C-alpha cells in the first residue's frame, strides 16, 4: 500500500504541492487527465515522510495519504 495516492483525475496541475514538498518527490507527470490538466505524480513513495504538506495546500483533494504502521506491527 502506497503512502502517497494521487487522484490524477482531480488534479488541475496547479503545482502548489510541488512547491511545498520538503522531500522534492512531487513533479508534473508528462500525462494529461480528461480535463486536459497536466497532473502531478510522486516519484519516490519510499521517501515520503507523510508531512501532509501536499494534501494541506491542495485545493482539489487530490491526495489520500497513508502512514506506515509502527515498527513491530505485522503488516499494515
Amino acid at each position, binding site marked *: 500500500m502506497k503512502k502517497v495516492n494521487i487522484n490524477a483525475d482531480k488534479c488541475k496541475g496547479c503545482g502548489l504541492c510541488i512547491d511545498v514538498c520538503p522531500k522534492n518527490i512531487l513533479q508534473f507527470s508528462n500525462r494529461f487527465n480528461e480535463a486536459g490538466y497536466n497532473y502531478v505524480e510522486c516519484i519516490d513513495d519510499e521517501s515520503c515522510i507523510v508531512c501532509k504538506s501536499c494534501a494541506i495546500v491542495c485545493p482539489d483533494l487530490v491526495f489520500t495519504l*497513508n502512514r506506515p504502521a509502527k515498527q513491530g506491527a505485522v503488516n499494515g
Partner: protein
Amino acid sequence: MTVAFKKPESLLDTKTIYCPGCGHGVIHRLVGETLDELDLREKTVGVAPVGCAVLLYDYINTDIVEAPHGRAPALATGIKRVRSDLNVFSYQGDGDLASIGMGEIMHAAGRGENITIIFVNNANYGMTGGQMAPTTLPDQITTTTPKGRNTSTDGFPFKMAELIANLDAPVFSARVKITDPKNINKAKKTIKYAFSLQKENKGFAFVEILSACPTNWGKTPSEAVKWVSDAMESYYPLGIFKDIWGEK
C-alpha cells in the same frame, strides 16, 4: 498503514469548477473538516453566495440555500431565528459581502446573530472576470481599473475584519491567509473556533481569508500565492481583531 489524510465527510466527492490554484478548494476543505470535527454536518444549513462559490451546494455535504447577491447574511439571520438549533453559516466573496452585501453583513453583525461568516478576500470579482472589488488594492490593475485603482476616484479598500471587530455585537473577528501549510493550519483552527462559538451559542463570528485568484491576477498559482503574502498582507494584516471569549 493508517489513513493520514482523506476527504472529510462534509465534502462531496466532486470535481470543482474552481481554477487551478484557487483558494476556494482549500477553504471548502477547512470548513468541511470543521463540520466533521465539531459533529455539525447533519444540523448545518449553509448559505451560498453569488460568485465563484455559487455552486457551493455541489461541494459541501450539507443543506444549502442559494442567496441573491450579497443577501446571504439576511438569509442566515432568517434561518437561525426560526431554527436556532441549526448550525448556520454564510460563505461569501468580496463583491458579495463587501459591495452589494455591505448592508446585510453590517446589520447581521450589528444584531450579533449567532451565525458564522466565512469571507473569502481575493481582491477582485472572480466570477465575472476580474473587476475591481471593494477589496482591490490601490494601484491594482483589474478589468474595471485598467490603469490601476485610483484612490481619488475609486476610493480605498475596505478592511472588513477590522470593521466588524469595531461593532459592539460580534464576539470574534479575525483574518488569516492560506498560502502555506502552517498558515492553512492556523486558518483551520480559526475557522473551527468560529464555528465552535456558534455551537456554544456565544455569538457572531467572522473569519476573513486572504486567498489567491491566479486567473484574474494574471499569475501562475505559485506566483499568486506569493502575491497574497507580498502585496495583500501589508494592506490586510493577519490577526485576531476581536475575541470576546478570549480562548484561542
